[in-house]
């Protein structure tokens, strides 16, 4: 009896020490779930979800404060990935937050720009180049198309230009064939009979 108690207590102590040690040794910094959700989000940093960027939205999803269907740039595929990750049912995109749009980049009309730097301050990814009273321009390769620079512009010189299809980004189409009623007359007669 005593031996059994000692063994159990000994085991308990040993395992407790091991668990305690490993919890300190292998402590995970930050919330891995937030990182995983953030990896799925499209990183436009557009704030259409109602949070000031992708990371805050990811944090809100992880805390259960936000739903998974608030990200229009991510669209249905993004919602599906989030649903897979979180083990919930996918749902349709919440229309309140906007609709998915074709990928666009901002374009500054240099004739109209007054060099006020307001758009530079608004850009979440530092994709606008310029200085006070100097012409501004968009670094197209870095622009995420978030449209956050449109609102602050006092002279409305920024427009969104959809990315044209060129040889570099061209994709093979999904094979679609015309539906033609080419069945032989005999078979058709049989089918209708």
């Amino acid at each position, binding site marked *: 009896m005593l031996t059994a108690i000692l063994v159990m207590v000994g085991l308990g102590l040993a395992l407790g020490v091991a668990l305690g040690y490993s919890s300190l040794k292998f402590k995970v910094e930050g919330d891995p779930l937030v990182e995983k959700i953030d990896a799925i989000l499209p*990183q436009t*940093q557009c704030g259409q979800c109602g949070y000031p960027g992708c990371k805050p939205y990811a944090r809100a999803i992880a805390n259960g404060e936000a739903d998974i269907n608030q990200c229009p740039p991510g669209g249905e595929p993004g919602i599906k990935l989030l649903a897979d990750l979180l083990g919930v049912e996918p749902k349709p995109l919440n229309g309140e937050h906007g609709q998915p749009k074709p990928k666009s980049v901002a374009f500054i009309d240099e004739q109209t720009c007054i060099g006020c730097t307001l758009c530079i301050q608004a850009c979440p*990814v*530092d994709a606008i180049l310029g200085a006070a009273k100097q012409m501004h321009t968009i670094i197209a390769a870095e622009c995420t198309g978030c449209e956050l620079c449109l609102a602050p512009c006092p002279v409305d010189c920024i427009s969104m230009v959809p990315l044209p299809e060129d*040889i570099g980004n061209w994709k*093979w189409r999904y094979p679609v064939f015309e539906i033609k009623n*080419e069945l032989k007359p005999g078979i058709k007669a049989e089918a209708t009979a």
Partner: protein
Amino acid sequence: MNIIAKIFNGNGGVHPPEHKLESTNTPIQLVPVPERLVLPLRQHIGNMPKVLVQAGDNVLKGQLLAEANGTVSAAVHAPTSGTIVAIDEQVIPHPSGLPDMCITLKPDGEERWITHDAVDYRTMDRAELLRRLRQSGIVGLGGATFPTHLKLSPKSSHPVVTLVLNGAECEPFITCDDLLMRERADEIVLGAQIVQSLLGTVECFIGIEDNKPEAAAAMREACTRAGFVAEVGIVPTLYPSGDARQLIRLLTGKEVPAHGRSTDIGIQCFNVATAQSIYRFFAHGETAVSRIVTITGNVARPGNYEALLGTSVDDLLKAAGGDLPDTDGYIMGGPMMGFALPSSAVPMTKAMNCVIASTPGLFPPPAMEMPCIRCAACADVCPVSLQPQDLYWFSKSNNLEKALDYNLMDCIECGCCTYVCPSHIPLVQYYRYAKSESIAQERAQTAADQARIRNDNRLARIEREKQERAQRNALRTAKTETGGDAEKQAAIQAAMERAKEQKEAVVPKNTDNLSPAVQAEIAEIDALRGDAQSTTQTTET
């Protein structure tokens, strides 16, 4: 290769009607210099080259028009002498039918070469050699158009010991490599020798399909003549044994790993036409200005034609006697992997090995797609041992992740599966769609990661600036609170002392070698000045 590997080779493949005899009856013919040459900048895999000329410039044959830009890129040269008329977007031979940047050259008909010399690869510094080759515009002429200088400087941990020359030419209709081997075997072998010495390989295989006995004989003779030790390996005529990986397996018995390159197992593969252009470059300094193209199908004189790069398909067809009635389109490349040209006005590029004038009889319209019956005929013929029937389901349902798990990216798009499918499912089109879709997704992911980093950096910068400002403010308030006056007084005192020191340090200039009279005068003035100062001081006090 051992006997078991021979019996259980399992390399799939199909044997479509060859249609090679039509274009092998005549020797290679020269296409006259056309009225206009259009040179797409993107004639190779990788970055677009940087244009060095302007519209209106007069250029010589072989002059560099656009230089390689970045690691994976190739240069573009003037195929003949003439004037640059335009640099703009024009339709190029590409399945999309989209326009791309092109240089348009109006030939002057004089064919004046720029000064070009042989490059001595035996004595020249290796880095300089590769730099020259980089600007030579030579790319793989088998169809993949990968810049050759990169293949000659492989970044592999494994030493490259085997050179494989690809003369298999497995696609139906195409015979440009066959004719090249028959007529210019010596140049190919000399090119192979150069490659051998640049790569440091010790053995060489030349792979030729058994339907080209003349080419094989010519290559054997050329090897003997040049004293070049190479094994001319005859491979069975079975599409797609001309794919580099298939050919390597057939010739050496080694298999290239799925996510690796052939250099990982010590093998480098070159097309015979590429070897020939390497020879032309090193022996004569000639850059990539022309190529041999098979014009076949529904034309009057099917055959092989050597034309300047940029010659329009229309001019090529004219050289082949024009297309016969009933022609309904033009296919670039072979019938298995080729694509319909958007128009016959497009120029010939480095990648164009064959143009087939098609007729409804030659290539009937695709039959109606029927449901998959899971017969696995596609799996039997798949040369890379994939599961096409599963890939089909995943691609069709847009389940890209699953398709990638089933090694979609290892698909070489040879089209054998589509060829044998009894339900006429355009399988390879589904894989092409899925592949380009997943490449686009991967690109979007890279862009998103980049955006995340930029956003994080921006937030960090804003935070840092905020803290710095707070620190500065704190410092300023601290200063004004704790005896700022005393500090100010001290600063004023220090400034006054500095000024005094500076004043004393001033030495009168140009006072040497003065006559005694002038010195006396100066002394007098100084005395007056001293008096004036003392009087003002006394009046003040």
